[in-house]
């Protein structure tokens, strides 16, 4: 029942409200199920007290019509109340973040200082207790943004922008995943949401909006050169270098993220190396070409360079 991606281990306002709703419905549903089972057993048993009542249309009218109508009306009312409570908050203090679904990763756009936004990918960091309004868009097909332990899901639909509100109740890491089948590597399109306290969040935001750390030693300098000359920059941006591609994820602070490839693998130099060379086996059909052109020394340099971009 626990877990980083569980509806039943809520860490956000919405998810908590829905979990309560669920447990109540589960209890009610179990009672109804038991009642049906008992009635059926009585009906099958043959002679028993109350069988006369069981065999008439009165049973159908009272238990089959009146009772369900009452229960369902009550449930509908509760459901609509919860729906309203979960609607988008028009909180002036809210943080606005945009998330764009791409095949098969998440582009995250934060507002930066002076109205200049900056990008990250496959990881959303949010402050605890503050409303975060997430603008959901897609670059290609329909995706669905879902972090079960924070809130329900909302689809990302071509030509539209949907907005949802997240409020995290506690610090910690939640895992989210694309919930609308989007072809190919849909199963490997996940992400993390990290809830930080306000000060940690602000300092993280300040660092994240800055340029990448320049390479410090000969090996990472080689890595950077390889990154530029091999054409990585055609698709990826590393702020502070010539690499300014916008097709793939922004890698400015890739080393500081919890995972690689939309939460498909852990994040360290070795994993980066495997990803560069063998990504089509790790995440089939993903849109990055496999780069098997490097020898071991080059690959190590490139991976260490990227892993060092904290």
């Amino acid at each position, binding site marked *: 029942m626990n877990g980083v991606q569980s509806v039943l281990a809520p860490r956000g306002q919405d998810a908590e409200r829905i979990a309560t709703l669920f447990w109540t419905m589960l209890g009610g549903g179990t009672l109804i199920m038991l009642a049906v089972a008992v009635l059926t057993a009585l009906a099958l048993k043959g002679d028993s007290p109350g069988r006369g009542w069981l065999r008439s249309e009165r049973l159908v009218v009272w238990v089959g019509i009146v009772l369900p109508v009452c229960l369902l009306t009550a449930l509908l009312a509760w459901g609509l109340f919860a729906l309203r409570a979960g609607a988008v908050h028009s909180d002036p203090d809210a943080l606005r973040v945009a998330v764009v679904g791409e095949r098969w990763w998440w582009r995250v756009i934060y507002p930066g200082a002076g109205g200049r936004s900056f990008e990250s990918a496959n990881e959303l960091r949010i402050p605890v207790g503050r409303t975060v309004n997430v603008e959901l868009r897609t670059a290609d097909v329909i995706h669905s943004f879902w972090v079960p332990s924070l809130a329900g899901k909302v689809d990302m639909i071509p030509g539209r922008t949907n907005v949802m509100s997240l409020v995290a109740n506690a610090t910690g890491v939640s895992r989210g995943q694309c919930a609308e089948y989007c072809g190919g590597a849909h199963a490997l399109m996940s992400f993390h949401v990290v809830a930080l306290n306000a000060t940690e969040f602000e300092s993280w935001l300040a660092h994240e909006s800055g340029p990448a750390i320049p390479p410090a030693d000969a090996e990472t300098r080689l890595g950077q050169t390889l990154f*530029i*000359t*091999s*054409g990585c*920059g*055609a*698709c990826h941006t590393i702020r502070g270098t010539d690499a300014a*591609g*916008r*097709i793939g994820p922004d890698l400015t602070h890739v080393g500081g993220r919890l995972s690689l490839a939309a939460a498909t693998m852990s994040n360290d130099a070795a994993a980066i190396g495997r990803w560069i060379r063998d990504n089509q086996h790790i995440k089939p059909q993903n*849109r990055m*070409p*496999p*780069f*098997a*052109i490097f020898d071991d020394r080059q690959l190590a340099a490139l991976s260490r360079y990227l892993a060092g971009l904290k």
Partner: protein
Amino acid sequence: MARRWWQPTRRDAVIAALTLCGLAVAGFLVALSGVYDIAASRSHLEITRWFLEFGKRRAVATYSLPVQAPPSLDDRNLVRLGAGHFRDGCASCHGAPGEQANPIVRAMQPAPPPLSVRAPTWTAEELFWIVRNGLKYTGMPAWPAPRRGDEVWAVVAFLLQLPEMDAARYRELTRLPPADTPAVAACVACHGDSSSPPVSRLVPRLNGQSQRYLELALRNYAHGQRPSGIMQPQAARLNSRTIELVARYYAGLKPASVPPADAEAGQIERGRGIATGGFEERGIPPCLTCHGGHALATYPKLAGQSEAYIAGQLHLLQKGIRADTPQGAIMTPIARLLSDRQIEDVAAWFASVEP
């Protein structure tokens, strides 16, 4: 009910089966006895020859049904490329205008036919099928790179011109230009050098490419990772020293562009947009990040290359034909993002810029 004129009974079936078995055994006995004469020095019986010819014609006609000819088989670039291959690969057996086939070859059974006479008896699609697949028991080999239909069509385009071709025209088409050193003569024959352009716009200009790229390409050809019925046999003849020599030779030549082709208005401009800025909507990266001046030496430079060559290679990449090399594996998914029109645009732009 009266018995119909022929109503098979169980006995009839047994007789038929036994007859068939008997024929099979008889055939085997003939072969076992070794009386059938397979000498190439004597020709077949007329009826055997007729039957084999008939079977061949029917087989080629049937198997070439799904083949669809490209629209422009009279394109001179195609014909020139085909002529070069004909000179190196076909003429030694089939002869050529003004050249007799070698007597050794004429002693083959069946003898390779003179194509000026025989090619017109086939349709273009049939010729394509024969050149690509070869013919069993005739000595006619299949195309070494079966997926390179584009190269086969070049040969077919040449064969279609062959009947009207006199010796002078043939010599002009297949003339070997003088080379700086004999080691590169075979290369210069098609790819040209500092004084002559490639013989066809389908053939890349190699002047000024990096030595590492050229070596890599030759090795890929030699090992069959980059399929080509024309380049694989050429590259296979080179050893690592000659590969280095050839690559160093071309890398040392001053880059030169091909003569411009006429491009549609706006085409070059659109191509420039893609080459320099990519096409983000479809996830197409800018070409120049890798094919400009600042990229790895193992990536080819495309400026000044002819549009026909670039477009042709992009189509090959789209089909996955070049995916067996690490470089091709990178380029294959990118090529697949391009529409046919974008390919033409981008190729036109590269052809228009000075290297």
